[in-house]
């Protein structure tokens, strides 16, 4: 066949076409692998969910919330004190971290966005998100445990506060950024002060998004173990004071999972179930309930 330019190229047969269909085949093959790998991720997740349900459900009952952990080798009991402890320490963490986080976000977004302090805050917040959670525990150990002479819920709450502060700050900043500039302009145009504009216009509008950030922080804090293992330690008893070692769901799971007793291991699964449910509820609340229009 003459290869002179007068002849139109035949797209559907010949060597070029063969190469092109080989390339298509190869592409389809790669797509198949890609899809396969992506669906493969479902396997571990399904495994985890399945096992948490399968092993955790049997012991799940109201007792679990009203009774104390069983002694080693004993059966029965629950982990009510751990649930209370987790909620308490997350509460302490929120009380400590939320004001700092939101007020800082307000400063860097509303008052002086381009100042050196604001740039420093943004940089530091990003860095703080990368701090390993165990370091929060180490720091709380140094600052609270060593100075007060003992393990306590305060120490645990403090460690969690350090953990969630950057999250709250950064999501609050995003929330404030999401408020339309037009609102601020209208407010300043009417002669409002900075404070009035922030308090009456910006914050109310940003509130749903800020709450989202807080709920996400709660979800994170509730599931953390490392900051608590040597700050709040653990306790077999109902909490009497915030100044003593305090039980938590995550530390309970950690402790029980390594015991050689079948009942304790089952408790660990049940506690995992409760913890996962708690975290999921917090996450869903964050993303669905507070979703912006």
């Amino acid at each position: 066949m003459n290869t002179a330019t007068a002849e139109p190229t035949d797209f559907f047969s010949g060597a070029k076409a063969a190469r092109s269909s080989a390339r298509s085949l190869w592409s389809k093959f790669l797509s198949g692998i890609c899809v396969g790998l992506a669906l493969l991720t479902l396997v571990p997740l399904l495994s985890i969910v399945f096992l948490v349900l399968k092993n955790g459900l049997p012991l799940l009952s109201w007792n679990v919330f009203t009774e104390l952990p069983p002694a080693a080798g004993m059966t029965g009991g629950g982990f009510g004190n751990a649930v209370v402890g987790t909620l308490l320490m997350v509460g302490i963490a929120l009380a400590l971290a939320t004001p700092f986080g939101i007020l800082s976000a307000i400063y860097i977004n509303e008052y002086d966005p381009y100042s050196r302090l604001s740039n420093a805050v943004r940089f530091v917040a990003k860095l703080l998100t990368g701090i390993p959670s165990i370091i929060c525990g180490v720091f709380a150990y140094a600052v609270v445990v060593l100075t007060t002479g003992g393990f306590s819920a305060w120490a645990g709450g403090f460690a969690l506060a350090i953990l969630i502060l950057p999250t709250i700050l950064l999501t609050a900043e995003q929330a404030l950024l999401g408020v339309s500039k037009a609102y601020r302009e209208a407010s300043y145009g009417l002669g409002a002060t900075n404070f009035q504009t922030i308090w009456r216009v910006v914050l109310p509008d940003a509130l749903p998004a800020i709450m989202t950030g807080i709920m996400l922080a709660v979800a994170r804090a509730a599931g953390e173990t490392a900051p608590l293992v040597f700050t709040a330690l653990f306790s077999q008893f109902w909490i009497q004071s915030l100044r003593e070692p305090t039980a938590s769901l995550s530390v309970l799971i950690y402790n029980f999972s390594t015991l050689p007793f079948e009942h304790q291991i089952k408790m660990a699964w049940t506690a995992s179930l409760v913890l996962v449910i708690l975290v999921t509820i917090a996450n869903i609340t964050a993303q669905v309930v507070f979703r912006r229009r």
Partner: protein
Amino acid sequence: MIKTMDSHPPHTASPQSAAPSELSQARADFLKVCDFDFYYGKKQALFKINMEIPQRQVTAFIGPSGCGKSTLLRNFNRMNDLIDGVHHEGDILLNGRSIYDKKIEIIALRRSIGMVFQKSNPFPKSIYENIVYSLRIAGVSNKRILDETVEHSLRGAALWDEVKDRLQDSALGLSGGQMQRLCIARAIANRPEILLMDEPCSALDPIATAKVEDLIHELKHQFTIVIVTHNMQQATRCSDRTAFFYLGKLIEYDETQKIFTNPGEKQTEDYITGRFG
């Protein structure tokens, strides 16, 4: 010459505006611009502007995009101060007082001047709360006064009949024209001296535009109005005096009739006849 802010603002009065003859002589130089240069950083946006804007009249600023008319307008209530890196030379006087006087609070200035923006920006609050916002930030909380202000302002903005039964509804549920009239009502709620309007009708349909223009005719009995507009017919319809700007300079400033029928400058004539936009 500073008006004192009482705790009961002066609108317990009747909604009707006083007849012109009862008011004192209106100042011809109520808002006076003196040798005013303005810079965004290094870029000069306004060149030696000199003009006197009379009280209780409508003055229109016209000119092609980027000629500085909005920039000048936004300097009257020092909104440009919110932008980083701006500076100016020369002065602007309100009723004989420099607005850049160190003794004057910008907040006070802005509470004395109302502004309506190109794209209406009601707060995501109820209609009621939008109007009373300027009163609340001035410390007024007396419900009777707030209610009266709302009615007064909405009547003044020709919106009362349309929304009087849904004052607690969100302002964002109004139509475009209604939102802009709400913004006008909000701007006049605290009885400002001057009303600045930055292309208030550019986002509105003809019917809404007509309503706003009627409003301007009504409002000028009580307020000094400066309006920036792209629409020359609007300037003809609404304003008493017109200023033509080009490339940051004030080219011509005169009675509206004269500008549009017998302009003095060639550039003005070119712009009006549409030789450049």
